[in-house]
């Protein structure tokens, strides 16, 4: 599977997978907010700071905040905080406006392990809404926090939470330092999985979250690579004459849509994700066809083409054939992504020199602005379809945003010391 050549490349490029570089180089900052949020009190868990190396309830609160579905109450001024359901004074919490109260403890489980127990109680009904116990090592506080936030989110909204999912992005530091980084969706626990002096772009998650496809210029031309996140092993998935780019996994994980230039023009092809086999061409226009992205059911591919002049977004069957134009407003529409339910198209539109995240309702074609920052890049949907991740430049600083679909809540995942490029939200992994 791995040629000596690719092994050599592995030596040239330092692969630093499984290496925690920076534990918290992003911070969450909420911009805006709605009024119909569920009011929740998350009480600091008993002994969390002495038994865990990372914050626990702080991470739970950040998660709930950034979802835009919760109003997290301040508990810092409350004396005599409860740690178990039995010690909750419900009238007091209801008086403070809480609809639910989360309490918990961290206890010694022996063998260097700790047990985190938590309950989410309905403040009016005085009944448990959800709860659980996790026995982990003391450095796994963040994972447990994301799991608890997912359980709370599911109990209150009825939808699957995305706090345990991961994101990928390229971090550029200076002219010749590129890192492909994977992090928790809140930006925590970032890991560098590939380092290169040459550009890296267009990372794409496999549907099972085990692999990343991306474009690397390490051989002085764009080549599509696939890397196993667990082992760090990688191989060239598309390395044809000319340029190779734009990888997008089919929802069954078996194929990659890629952009190749074998015909002397950028066209969309399919290659086997497992490697080998010929490239099967899907588009035949004389124009640029690029940035393929699949619908969740695998039936369609949306892409960018300038067959009508400027770049516009089109849709075609995943087997190729006639394309339907989806965007009619604006002269420059790129980077399309369909929501998991297929009802919304997110993309980037150039407006008087600004590049904005736009949302198109697929049922009636209505388009609205999600982000009015001057320079935004590459939106992608959370796997539950409730949020959109994109890169932005603000005041010369490069940042990631996770925004609710209506734009009413934007969580800024600020990255320090570098330019954050080409983010992509990963899938559910359980």
């Amino acid at each position: 599977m791995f040629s000596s050549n690719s092994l050599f490349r592995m030596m040239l490029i330092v692969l630093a997978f499984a290496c925690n570089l920076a534990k918290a180089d992003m911070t969450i900052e909420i911009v805006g907010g709605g009024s119909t949020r569920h009011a929740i009190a998350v009480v600091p868990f008993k002994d969390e700071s002495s038994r865990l190396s990372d914050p626990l309830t702080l991470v739970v609160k950040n998660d709930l905040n950034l979802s835009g579905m919760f109003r997290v109450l301040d508990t810092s001024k409350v004396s005599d905080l409860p740690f178990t359901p039995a010690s909750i004074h419900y009238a007091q919490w209801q008086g403070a406006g809480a609809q639910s109260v989360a309490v918990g403890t961290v206890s010694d489980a022996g063998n260097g392990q700790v047990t985190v127990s938590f309950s989410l109680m309905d403040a009016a009904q005085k009944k448990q809404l959800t709860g659980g116990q996790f026995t982990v090592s003391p450095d796994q506080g963040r994972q447990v926090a994301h799991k608890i936030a997912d359980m709370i989110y599911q109990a209150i909204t009825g939808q699957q939470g995305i706090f345990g999912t991961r994101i990928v992005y390229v971090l550029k530091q200076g002219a010749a330092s590129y890192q492909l980084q994977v992090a928790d969706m809140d930006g925590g626990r970032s890991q560098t999985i590939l380092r290169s002096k040459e550009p890296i772009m267009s990372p794409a998650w496999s549907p099972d979250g085990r692999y990343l496809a991306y474009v690397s210029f390490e051989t002085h031309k764009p080549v599509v690579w696939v890397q196993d996140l667990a082992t760090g092993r990688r191989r060239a998935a598309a390395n044809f004459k000319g340029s190779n780019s734009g990888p997008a996994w089919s929802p069954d994980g078996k194929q990659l849509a890629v952009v190749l230039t074998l015909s002397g023009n950028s066209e969309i092809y399919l290659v086997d994700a497992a490697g080998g086999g010929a490239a099967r061409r899907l588009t035949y226009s004389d124009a640029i066809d690029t940035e393929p992205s699949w619908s969740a059911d695998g039936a369609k591919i949306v892409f960018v083409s300038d067959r009508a002049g400027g770049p516009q977004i089109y849709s075609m069957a995943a087997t190729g054939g006639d394309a339907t134009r989806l965007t009619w407003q604006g002269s420059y529409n790129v980077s399309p992504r369909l929501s998991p339910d297929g009802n919304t198209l997110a993309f980037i539109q150039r407006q008087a020199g600004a590049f904005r995240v736009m949302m198109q309702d697929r049922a009636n074609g209505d388009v609205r602005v999600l982000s009015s920052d001057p320079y935004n890049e590459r939106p992608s949907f959370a796997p539950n379809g409730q949020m959109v991740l994109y890169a932005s430049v603000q005041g010369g600083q490069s940042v990631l945003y996770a925004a609710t679909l209506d734009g009413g809540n934007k969580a800024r995942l600020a990255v320090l010391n570098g330019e954050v490029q080409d983010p992509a939200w990963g899938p559910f992994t359980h």
Partner: protein
Amino acid sequence: MNWKQLLIGTAAASLLAACSSTKPPEAAAPAASQPAATSVAPVSSGEQNQTALDPLHDPNSPLAQRSVYFDFDSSVVKDEYKSLVGAHADFLKSSNGNSHKITIQGNTDARGSREYNLALGQRRAESVKKSMEVLGVPDKQLEAVSFGKEKPKATGTSDADYAQNRRADIVYDGQ
């Protein structure tokens, strides 16, 4: 016979020079800083011979010009670059040059989608490649690739900076 050996020796020397250099392609004029290459020193009038036989390393050769610049939003090779493209095409078809391969690397100035810019840079590289094919250079000696907006020569935001980045570079033998 001697002529052939000299050519091979010179080619090897130029390969070595290429290996030791990590500079970008436009800086590829090592002959200027190595006027008396030791490998050819025993041959009388070696310096002249090297220049004559290795135009790739002659800063005065038309082949020293390796960048084609484009107008805004255009991939058309302008008339002022026809002679540059023609000189490289002639060399690649010649007995001296027909063992060489070139990569044409397209670049863009624009902001916006990385992938779309990659395709635009590709269009510029393909435009230079097609010009050479029209002049009779075999396809197997040519590869058009793109860096899109990822490797700007000028990082500023002035019109002059942008003009520097609307460019295709000719790179010999993977250097």
